[in-house]
C-alpha cells in the first residue's frame, strides 16, 4: 500500500477516487439474480408468443414491441451489468440509445409526414 501511495504522489492527475466517474467497485452479480432474470425472459417470451395468437388489431404490434423492450432492458441492466456499472458506462449506454432513438424518430417523422407510397 505504501508503494501504491508513492506512485500516486508522482502522478496525482491519475488518482482515482470515489468521485471519479470511472471509479467502480466491480460488483459480482449472484447466480440467483441471473436465474430470476433468465426465468423472467422466458416467461416474457412465452407471453409474447401466446398474445400473438389473440387478435388485438393495431395493438398486437404495440404489445409485442413493448415486451421486446422490457426484455432488452432486463438483458442490458442485469446480464450486461449496466445496473452495477460505473457512471461512465451508464452514460455511454444512455447516450448511445438516445442518439439511436433520435435517428429513428427523425427518419420516421420524415416518412410519416408524407403520403404513404406516393413519393
Amino acid at each position: 500500500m505504501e508503494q501504491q501511495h508513492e506512485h500516486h504522489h508522482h502522478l496525482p492527475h491519475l488518482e482515482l477516487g470515489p468521485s471519479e466517474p470511472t471509479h467502480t467497485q466491480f460488483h459480482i452479480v449472484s447466480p440467483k439474480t441471473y436465474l430470476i432474470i433468465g426465468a423472467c425472459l422466458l416467461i416474457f417470451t412465452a407471453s409474447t408468443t401466446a398474445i400473438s395468437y389473440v387478435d388485438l388489431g393495431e395493438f398486437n404490434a404495440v404489445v409485442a414491441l413493448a415486451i421486446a423492450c422490457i426484455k432488452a432492458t432486463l438483458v442490458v441492466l442485469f446480464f450486461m451489468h449496466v445496473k452495477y456499472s460505473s457512471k461512465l458506462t451508464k452514460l455511454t449506454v444512455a447516450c448511445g440509445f438516445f442518439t439511436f432513438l433520435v435517428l429513428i424518430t427523425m427518419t420516421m417523422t420524415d416518412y410519416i409526414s408524407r403520403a404513404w407510397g406516393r413519393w
Partner: protein
Amino acid sequence: MDSHTLAAQTGEIGHVEHEHPPFLRHHFENVAQQREAATFGMWLFLLTEIMFFGGLFCAYLIFRNWYYPAFVAGSHSLHIWAGTLNTTLLIVSSFTMAMAVHAAEVRHRKPLLAWMIATIILGCGFLCVKAYEWHDEWVEHHVPGLNFNPATLEHGTKAYPDDNLAPDMAQKTSIYFSLYFAMTGMHALHMIIGVSLLTFLLIRAWGGAYTSGHIAPVENFGLYWHFVDIVWIFLFPLLYLISRHQ
C-alpha cells in the same frame, strides 16, 4: 527513492513502482482501471452495432407500412414455433454466458468451461434451427435473387386462406424476404463469429486463462453475446409475431 532513479536502476520504465499481475498493461494504473477501459471500448463498439442493425430495422418498418399486405403474407409463411424455439435457445444461452462470466469472476475453472460449452451448444442449436428455416424457404421458392417465385404467394395457404395478393403486390413480398434474409443473415453471421470467438476463449480457458483475475476477455465477449441476443429479441416479434392477425 524517486521513480526516475529506480527506472534507471532497473532499466525498465513502468515496472518500477509495485508488483502487478502480468496481464496489466503499463499504461493502466491498476486492474480495475484496465477493466473499466475495456468495458467502455466494448460498449462503444456495441453502439456502432446498434446503429448498424437499427438501419435495417428502420428500413423494415418503412417498407412494412408501404407494402403492408405483402409483408403480412410474407410473415405468415414463417414458422412461429421455430422463432419461439430460437428465442428460447438464445435466452438460455445468454443465461449460461452470464454464468460463465460469474465463474470467471469467482475463479472456478471447471464451471467456467462447462458454462462456455453450454453456450456454444445452444448457439449451434440456434444456427441449426435457422438453417432448417432457410432450407424451408428455399424449397418454397422464397429466396429473392436465387429462386424467388411470387406466384407462390398470390393464393392463400392452408393456415391463411385469405392471403390473396394481386400479382404486383405478391411481387413486393420479395422486399419482405430480402429484408428477412438480410436481417436474419447478419444476425446469424454475428452468431457464427460469436461461436468461433467463444471456442477460442474455451481453448484458452482450458489452459487456465481467465480464472486468475484476468476476466476482461470473457466479460467483454459476454457483452457481445448478450447484444446479439437483444437483436434477436427485436427480430422475433417484427418478423414472426406482429402480422399474425392482420
